[in-house]
């Protein structure tokens, strides 16, 4: 499932973009280091293949609903992790642009969720060890099922984390997890069978093709498991550090709302060093003047519904009315500008 711009906060979006760009740069370097130029057209065309294959629907047995291919694992098996990650990133980029799948800020998250896990965790840590002992159809099936399952579960869990860290959704952690993981369990089983099916089909139909690709791809020999785990650990610590640091200095989400409603932050804040500086910057740049405070100086507008006001102390009718009025005016203005330009252009031609 694609992460969406509307659920993201800029900090989470930017952090994931940084991680994704870093990985793209790293993979590019790795591919360039031992480039078989045959890979360049191969990567391009397999990307187009994934793209086209995703547009084909099939019926999921038993349910009658239709599903389609994700494809990250097929890419990793055929092209190896580095090239597969680049291909997956390019496919998602084109989808984000042409189908607006998720959006441009969320693209960083989507590449991360759908690229990193199959390419750098599921493939080297699960698929490879199982298949290494012999490429029988059964082994391929088992390896595909488990690795696709793990990749998707991790991806789904990241979506949950990214959404919660952004603080735009009200879903509690447990409910969200209970919602996402089972869906992706079902998707994972189907995807696992398809992945195994395609690889086995290739092995049966044109075994020499599969081998020649595996030979020509960069770095098909050993990737050290230890190294991967270590790198991942470092990434987790850095990301966690950055996100939590921002989360604690920025009165985002609920805190921000509390501050706006009650006029002062509810929670005591540390105001030293960079925290105070950031807060000052935030107040200078992001504070919306005259939204709540001014209203309190003009008490005469508070006379709308009398008795109920105590029940809902944070309702301010005055702000609401001016908000609605202003919104209508603004929308009218924008439409005027839009149609105005159109009319002028028509006259000109």
């Amino acid at each position: 499932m694609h992460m969406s711009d509307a659920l993201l906060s800029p900090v989470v979006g930017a952090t994931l973009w940084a991680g994704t760009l870093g990985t793209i740069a790293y993979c590019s370097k790795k591919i360039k280091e031992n480039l078989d130029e045959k890979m360049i057209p191969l990567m391009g065309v397999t990307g187009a293949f994934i793209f086209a294959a995703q547009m084909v629907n099939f019926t999921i047995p038993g349910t009658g609903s239709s599903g389609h291919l994700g494809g990250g694992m097929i890419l990793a098996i055929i092209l190896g992790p580095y090239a597969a990650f680049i291909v997956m990133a390019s496919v998602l980029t084109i989808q984000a642009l042409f189908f607006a799948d998720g959006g441009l800020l969320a693209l960083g998250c989507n590449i991360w969720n759908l690229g990193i896990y199959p390419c750098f965790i599921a493939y080297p840590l699960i698929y490879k060890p199982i298949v290494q002992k012999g490429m029988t159809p059964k082994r391929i099936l088992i390896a595909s099922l488990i690795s696709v399952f793990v990749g998707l579960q991790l991806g789904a869990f990241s979506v949950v984390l990214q959404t919660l860290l952004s603080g735009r959704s009200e879903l509690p952690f447990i409910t969200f997890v209970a919602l996402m993981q089972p869906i992706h369990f079902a998707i994972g089983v189907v995807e696992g069978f398809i992945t195994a099916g395609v690889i086995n089909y290739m092995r049966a139909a044109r075994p020499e093709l599969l081998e020649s690709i595996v030979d020509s791809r960069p770095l098909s020999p050993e990737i050290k498991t230890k190294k991967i785990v270590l790198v991942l650990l470092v990434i987790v610590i850095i990301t966690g550090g950055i996100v939590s640091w921002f989360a604690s200095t920025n009165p985002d989400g609920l805190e921000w709302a509390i501050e706006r409603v009650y006029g002062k932050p509810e929670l005591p804040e540390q105001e030293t060093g960079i925290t105070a500086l950031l807060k000052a910057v935030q107040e200078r740049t992001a504070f919306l003047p005259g939204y709540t405070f001014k209203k309190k100086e003009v008490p005469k507008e508070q006379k709308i519904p009398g008795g109920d006001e105590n029940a809902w102390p944070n309702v301010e009718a005055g702000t609401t009315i001016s908000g609605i009025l202003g919104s209508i005016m603004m929308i009218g203005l924008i439409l005027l500008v839009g149609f105005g330009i159109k009319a002028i252009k028509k006259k000109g031609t």
Partner: protein
Amino acid sequence: MDFDKEYFNLGFLDTLSYKDTVIHRLDPRTKVIATFALIITVVSFPKYEITGLIPFFLFPAMIFSLGDIPVWFILKKVMVVSVFAVFIGIFNPLFDTHVRLDLFGIPVSGGWVSFFSILMKFFLTMCSALLLISTTSFPGICHALQKLRIPEIFISQLLFLYRYIFVLVEETLRMVRARDLRSFGKKGRGISIFVNLIGTLFIRTIERADRIYHAMLSRGFSGTIYYVKRDRLRKADFVCLFLTGMVLILFRTYDLVSFIGKQTERIF
């Protein structure tokens, strides 16, 4: 997903991007940077914000009219786009029930406010992505990304992918049509047929890659791809970037809607 329609949409967006208007003539870099700035500014609003988001609709309105983009086509695409945000957002009213707004005596809970805010952000961000691609050719965007120091291998991958999408999608279109002609009702659309279809498609893909590689070799390919077109930032680009930045800061910092609302109230 309707296969033929998807493919048609892809081609249509591509055609749109080769129009010749003020917006289309801007340097791709300008548009990429401006779009990202707009998206980041929009999502940076806290979750209960509604009025502050309204002025930002000025951007799509201006691009639609200046860039001569068919409004309904884009709007339809935004509506049918993956609805994950809506799906997750709709839970907000369930979990956040304390009242935040009073709409002429009707209490509105915080959940609905934040859900509406998510919807507005969803619309704005989706619109800007689609407007970027319908006012900028895809190769143009790739060149822009290259100038912005994105690794070259990724850029050539994007260009290759884009070129061959149309070839492969047409190939797939023929195969899917053949499958559909041979299948009746739900029969014949199952998973095993799908796997065989994809497998065949994949083998054809690999063989095609081989042919392409040989064709490239015979034309002197040695591992690097060269680009001919050189874009240059002109005065219009700097003006556009400057104005966009100023307007974004203005919209983000000042609550224009409340201001206008209060002025109107005062007049009446």
